[in-house]
């Protein structure tokens, strides 16, 4: 902290001689707006890709402070950022961003984190930072086919951990492929609850089919391995982190999200098992 003060980095807007007259005043307003927009965009990328609340707030503060806007205040929820700045010496500015849904893209979070570190060490202009954020926003995800193959592998590994044999692993590999294929291509427009309900049902149908085809021996590890890709790990972990940091609203919302996902997956699986039990006389687990 202290060593940074010596460098040119912390050039407060007020001390900048460029901004002294009236035209300068306008320029300064423009500059501050740009700083706040950029900070907000960094926060938006973080929040939309699964970062904790305090990381979003801290990044916004850090960027604003570094570029000389000290009067900024934020209020961050899981699906929105409220930001306002201004006091007697700095112009007023306020904005709200709505972030309706979040995905888990940890690579983007890592990149923004890296950028916010670099801002402190290097002397980036605000345009450069904005350009870097553009690049991060446009980062491609992994190939869909690769994702499907990897999901199958994950299912197979975890069915082994839960006590499955080689046959179960093979069956779970196939189930994982089908499930992730459906997740990526099949349920785009569905709500979260319906989507998870259908996924739970789909898994169970696949597992029972493979079980009867003789590929899997134990139904229980088979189903347990296959539902793991649906586990809302990000929501759950972030819920705990937010609760621990005292962001109770966001933590509670995320915890509710995790519980809802499990409820719908469990209900989907249970429904299929009930049908299986009554129509085909199969065992309940």
């Amino acid at each position, binding site marked *: 902290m202290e060593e940074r003060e010596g460098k040119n980095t912390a050039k407060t807007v007020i001390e900048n001689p460029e901004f002294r007259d009236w035209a300068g005043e306008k320029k300064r307003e423009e500059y501050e707006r740009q700083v706040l927009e950029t900070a907000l965009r960094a926060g938006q990328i973080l929040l939309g890709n699964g970062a904790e609340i305090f990381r979003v707030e801290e990044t916004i503060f850090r960027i604003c402070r570094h570029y000389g806007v000290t009067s900024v205040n934020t209020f961050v929820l899981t699906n929105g950022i409220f930001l306002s700045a201004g006091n007697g010496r700095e112009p007023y500015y306020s904005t709200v961003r709505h972030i309706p849904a979040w995905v888990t893209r940890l690579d983007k979070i890592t990149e923004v*984190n890296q950028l916010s570190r670099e801002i402190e060490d290097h002397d980036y202009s605000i345009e450069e930072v904005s350009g870097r954020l553009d690049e991060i926003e446009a980062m491609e995800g992994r190939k869909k086919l690769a994702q499907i193959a990897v999901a199958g592998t994950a299912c197979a590994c975890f069915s082994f951990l839960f006590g499955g044999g080689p046959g179960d692993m093979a069956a779970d590999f196939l189930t994982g492929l089908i499930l992730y294929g459906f997740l990526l291509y099949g349920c785009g427009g569905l709500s979260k609850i319906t989507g998870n309900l259908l996924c739970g049902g789909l898994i169970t149908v696949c597992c029972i089919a493979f079980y009867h085809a003789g590929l899997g021996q134990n139904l229980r590890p088979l189903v347990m391995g296959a539902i793991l890709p649906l586990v809302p790990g990000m929501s759950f*972990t972030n819920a705990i982190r937010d609760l621990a940091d005292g962001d109770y609203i966001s933590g509670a919302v995320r915890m509710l999200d995790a519980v809802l996902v499990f409820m719908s997956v469990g209900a989907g699986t249970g429904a299929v098992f009930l049908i299986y039990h009554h129509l085909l006389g199969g065992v309940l687990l």
Partner: protein
Amino acid sequence: MIGQLAAAFAGTVAFGFLFGIPSKYFGHCGLCGAVAWGVYVLPFWGSDVIAVFAATVMLTFLSRLLAVRKRCPVTVFLIAGLIPLVPGVGLYWTFYYLVTGQMEQMSVTGLAAVKSACAIVLAIVLVFEIPQKFFRRLFYQKI
């Protein structure tokens, strides 16, 4: 045992891939998962809740250590490593028993799931109380 650790490693890396973790962190991520699972299946914990607690403490500690060392958000290592421990599977069985009408099973499984969820919450909260300085110092002394 070796097979289980290998499966935990591979499974965690696979989840890391799905969550978009940069590929240079795959090894560390897998290590976290394998260590967490290894601690979880140690024979002397006695109860599932304590095993989950111990595994999560170990995992969170390791994640924070790696996060300081690799200079990246701790989430990168924590989320994927926590997947096999998340009581979601238990919670899922609870709803499954509810739907299929096996009420006794439901209450037993539900209680166990809530207990291990609390254990995970406590473990993560406790380890995050350790100040960041501690990890920095640890790291600079080692290297």
